[in-house]
């Protein structure tokens, strides 16, 4: 529907958007405040950013978080893409309803429940088969679980919109179904796959609750360190760290969004061209 909307709707929309961004913008502004007192503006300074570079604990946890995020989003993209192919292309198979439920439930399941149930599984597994010990492995497994849900939903809608006749044409020309999928459909859904990798990466990088349960005593991810600092109140050092993370993650999301939109546009253009040639 494309109609001019009323002044009331416009006001609510833009006020809502402004309020969504206000806290982040003030946070970034205050991260450049030279005063250690959070409510007094001193002068412009980058002192808190340089201080971050000398915080060993922070750097180590940031490294662990990055490693986890790369491993988890890669695993989630593989599993999520497979799940979306199964759900879109195979109309009936045993376990279809179960798979549908299991890819959608993590989207709404409170993290605290997922966290504690997964921890109890890992601990019980260690008792029986001696694996996996809490730390990197368990954090990655947990993150793959909820990231897979987001990947499946994203890729699923793109795959459902992809034109199957192109793939059928490839098969008429002698390609095997697997080959036709690989050469024709995979490039079409590639933007969705890449952007869901980026989104999984940011989700994994942000997770506090599930990681806290499954990490065990030895490992601390970046959000766990930040949470313990934030519990003590607002501090300029955390402001600087938060600004860096918000900007980096925001950039990831913008790239992901851009890829999706560009993929849409290009597809629309190609369809138009094809229609003109037909």
């Amino acid at each position, binding site marked *: *529907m*494309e*109609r001019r*909307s009323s002044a009331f*709707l416009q006001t*609510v*929309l833009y006020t*809502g*958007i402004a309020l*969504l961004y206000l806290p*982040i913008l*003030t*946070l970034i502004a205050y991260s450049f405040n030279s005063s250690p007192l*959070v*409510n007094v503006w001193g002068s412009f300074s980058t002192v808190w950013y340089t201080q971050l570079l000398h915080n060993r604990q922070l750097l180590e946890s940031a490294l662990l978080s990055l490693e986890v995020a790369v491993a988890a989003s890669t695993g989630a993209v593989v599993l999520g893409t*497979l*799940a979306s*192919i*199964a759900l879109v292309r*195979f*109309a009936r*198979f045993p*376990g279809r309803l*179960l*798979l549908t439920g*299991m*890819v*959608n439930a*993590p989207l*709404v*399941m*409170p993290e*605290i*429940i*997922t966290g*504690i*149930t*997964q921890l*109890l*599984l890992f601990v*019980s597994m260690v*008792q029986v088969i001696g694996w996996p010990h809490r730390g990197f492995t368990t954090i990655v497994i947990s993150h793959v679980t909820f990231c*897979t849900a987001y990947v499946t939903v994203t890729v699923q809608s793109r795959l459902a919109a992809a034109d199957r006749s192109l793939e059928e044409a490839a098969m008429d020309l002698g390609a095997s179904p697997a080959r036709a999928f690989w050469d024709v459909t995979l490039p079409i859904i590639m933007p969705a796959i890449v952007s869901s990798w980026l989104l999984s990466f940011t989700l994994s*990088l942000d997770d*506090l*609750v599930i990681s*806290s349960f499954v990490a065990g005593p030895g490992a601390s991810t970046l*959000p766990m360190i*930040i*949470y313990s600092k*934030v*519990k003590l109140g*607002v501090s300029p050092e*955390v*402001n600087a760290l938060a600004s860096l993370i*918000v900007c980096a993650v*925001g950039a990831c*999301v*913008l790239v992901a969004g851009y890829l999706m*939109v560009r993929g849409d546009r290009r597809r629309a253009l190609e369809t138009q061209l094809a229609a003109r040639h037909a």
Partner: protein
Amino acid sequence: MNLNLRPGRWLIILPPLIFLLAFFLIPFAFAFKISFAQAIPHVPPFSEVLYFTPQHRLRLDVHLDNYRYLLTDEVYGLAYLYSLRTAFFSTVICLLVGYPMAYAIARAPKSAQNLLLLVIMLPFWTSFLLRVYALEGIIRDNGFLNTVLMHLGLLHEPLHIMHTGVAVYIGIIYSYLPFMVLPLFATLEKLDPTLLEAAADLGSTPSRAFLDVTLPLSIPGVIAGAMLVFIPAVGEFVIPSLLGGPNNLMIGRVLWDEFFGNHDWPVAAAVAIAFLLLLAGPIAIYQYYNVKQIES
């Protein structure tokens, strides 16, 4: 059952199916089992529920104490009620704010829609924990809001919002608003504008047409959005823990304290199972509408 399924297809179906079964669904069975255990000073800190005796007999050692404890200690009942109430009113406010926003986006020119959606989604994907922390900078006694209001002479004493129930509401609405806007937009966008024209031709005022046509047709979006806000909000931990005070005990926080503070894993497992039963209804509604939407 489909017998035409080529064996190669199982290579696609099985990896995600087995992974999610093993690491998402089966964990609930373990939590269920351990909710009947006893806390003991041991690694791991709970007694065996199902085990082989030295005589090679299978033994079931069930303790109902954890559930009895949930029923008798009123902290749990109050926390459940408080969580449900907070999540319910937050969902209603998100709906009241989110509906006009989604409607405005659905009516915006196509070229602006993608940009507006991205602007709404960007905060959602960007660090939840840090956004809650950023909110603290706005609402704390010497924060942005109070500084501005007092500077303008509207207030003489700062508003005490931090560590109150109001702060928890602000936090939940601020964090979950995008979840409400997106599904609402998805249904409002699909709405056929000729229906509204027809209503107008038949003499409906715009507000009448909205109530009779737009609102009923957008109900699936309302339900999807409401569930996406309500279910995670009931289990919210970060917001009540950082913004709320000692009185704002939501169930997520009680579970966290039981686990990390008291180290009572069996009681924490029982809280989680009881909590899940409470959420079974809303999750079933969400799944039902989801499957229906995918199939249409």
